[in-house]
């Protein structure tokens, strides 16, 4: 079975326009979540992690005429360019496939008075615009499975490469913060009135974030990298319990972790990057699932305290940051965490730690009872 390597990546968020800039800011303990009055919601203070409009237009204008592309498309196209232009993959190659992960796509077009044609609201149309721009010959694959979309897109990318039809998959994901999304999470009482505090005793909800992320997977390792990062395994599982709340006993997440680890001993996992949204139920559920599979002593972090919950981009952005942790042997602290806030104590990373790292378990869970996990390894010896 072919090995699937990560060969290129990008992150566009409030903390920067490439993975290095994001990682540098995160290691320095900088959070991109700040108070905004961009969404005039009746009576609500909103903290969110937003992408700088001026810089986005400047960056994207190197590749496109920004007036002809939506804000999300600008982000995603810029993200794919930044990732791909540093690799030697050919976007026009029939053996290259584009996979798009997004939860709400061009959701800003749902409000009246936008300059774009109505059809652009469709997620498949966004994917088509990206495909056209890069002149890729294959029908793009669009995955929209709530908050696990990005992680699930990586699972799908890994699997489709294993089938041998493609040589490279360009997995890109993005979402923007809109009044629609803010009012939705606000009416669910899921937004922390301060910047989110994943796994903390005083957590009161999530912070929304926007951005785009791209990870390029390939069955062929380019020679440029110093480390080989692999997507070793991945899976998904449904709770079959509730559409808007996670399973109380972590059953679905547990099942996905067990399937992804595929009998590998717990010793082979160096750290866990959790979904860690900062909502009471999600973080509690995760602690139970980690404990049930014997991983509760492992270092755990959530990256949502830096860039918020970037929805369809989250799984990709966070995976890229985990890959960077593996490459630099540097565990990132979980921003916003102070005191144990889950019934099962977790080993939350509270300061950046330089330590030899070879593997990471990345988890995601979301509405609809969905859970997805991937195992990322570095310099794995296949002999």
């Amino acid at each position, binding site marked *: 079975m072919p090995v699937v390597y990560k060969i290129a990546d990008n992150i566009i968020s409030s903390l920067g326009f490439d993975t290095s800039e994001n990682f540098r800011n995160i290691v320095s303990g900088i959070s991109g979540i700040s108070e905004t009055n961009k969404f005039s919601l009746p009576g609500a203070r909103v903290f969110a992690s937003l992408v700088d409009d001026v810089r986005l237009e400047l960056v994207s204008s190197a590749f496109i005429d920004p007036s002809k592309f939506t804000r999300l498309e600008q982000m995603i196209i810029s993200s794919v360019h930044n990732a791909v232009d540093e690799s030697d993959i050919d976007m026009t190659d029939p053996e290259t496939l584009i996979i798009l992960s997004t939860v709400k796509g061009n959701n800003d077009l749902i409000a009246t008075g936008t300059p774009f044609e109505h059809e652009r609201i469709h997620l*498949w149309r966004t994917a088509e615009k990206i495909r056209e721009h890069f002149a890729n010959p294959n029908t793009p694959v669009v995955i929209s499975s709530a908050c696990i979309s990005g992680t699930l897109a990586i699972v799908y990318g890994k699997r489709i490469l294993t089938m041998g039809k493609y040589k490279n998959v360009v997995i890109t994901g993005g979402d923007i913060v809109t009044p629609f999304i803010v009012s939705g999470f606000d009416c669910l009482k899921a937004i922390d009135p301060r910047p989110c505090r994943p796994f903390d005793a005083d957590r009161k909800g999530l912070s929304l974030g926007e951005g785009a992320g791209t990870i390029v997977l390939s069955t062929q390792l380019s020679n440029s990298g110093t480390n080989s990062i692999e997507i070793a395994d991945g899976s998904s599982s449904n709770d079959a319990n509730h559409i808007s709340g996670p399973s109380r006993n972590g059953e679905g997440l547990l099942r996905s972790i067990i399937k992804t680890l595929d009998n590998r001993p717990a010793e082979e996992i160096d750290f866990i990057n959790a979904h860690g949204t900062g909502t009471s139920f999600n973080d509690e559920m995760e602690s139970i699932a980690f404990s049930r599979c014997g991983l509760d002593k492992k270092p755990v972090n959530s990256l949502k305290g830096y860039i918020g919950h970037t929805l369809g981009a989250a799984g990709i952005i966070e995976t890229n940051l985990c890959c960077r942790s593996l490459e630099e042997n540097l565990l990132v602290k979980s921003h916003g965490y102070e005191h144990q806030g889950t019934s099962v104590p977790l080993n939350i990373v509270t300061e950046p730690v330089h330590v030899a790292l070879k593997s990471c378990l990345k988890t995601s869970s979301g509405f609809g009872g969905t859970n997805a996990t991937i195992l990322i390894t570095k310099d794995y010896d296949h002999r």
Partner: protein
Amino acid sequence: MNQEYCCIKEGVIVVNGHTVYTDSLDHSEEPFLVKAYRALGLSYLKFFKMDNLSKTGFLAAELLLKGTPIDNQDLKSDIAVILMTGNASLDTDLGFQSTINDPASYFPSPSIFVYTLPNIMLGEICIRYKITGEGVVFIEPEINSTLIFEYINMIFTDGVTNTCLFGWVDYLDGKAEAFLSVIHKNMITESFSQQSFNSFIQGTFRSGNHQQ
């Protein structure tokens, strides 16, 4: 290919080649999906709180799976669900947007917002049948049988999945469309080709229910 399916299209519901419901053009106030639910004697109270996309997917799943071996009380981690949709949750998105458009009548509802995700219909089917296996929702302008065929072949190599529920569910502007079918791992033989799969989709769904 000779396998079970349920198709909802143009107001007609067909199960395994038999028309089980045709939308009556009476003047009742009830929408097609609710009339069909009642006429077919289904009983699942959660149906009424679902949005139209989930109602469409649930109805097709219920008519396909009820009374089959999948319809028992055990958790089923060996069943994968792959759904595809074109309009995704746009019907409910528009409904939710209408509750926040005007600051004077700003009243967003949590029970509407949770349905502004296309994978909620997958969640509803998983809850009904206690399916805990792999799940994915693809967004395509129309049913893409190549993508489904590839996914089916791929998922059966994972060492866990034995059954795959797959198909298309779509809803917008009062137009409900669904095509669901089930395939088991032991049905993947040499005769299961992209070509035979395409003609199965063509003959049962693309050609339309009015020709049945």
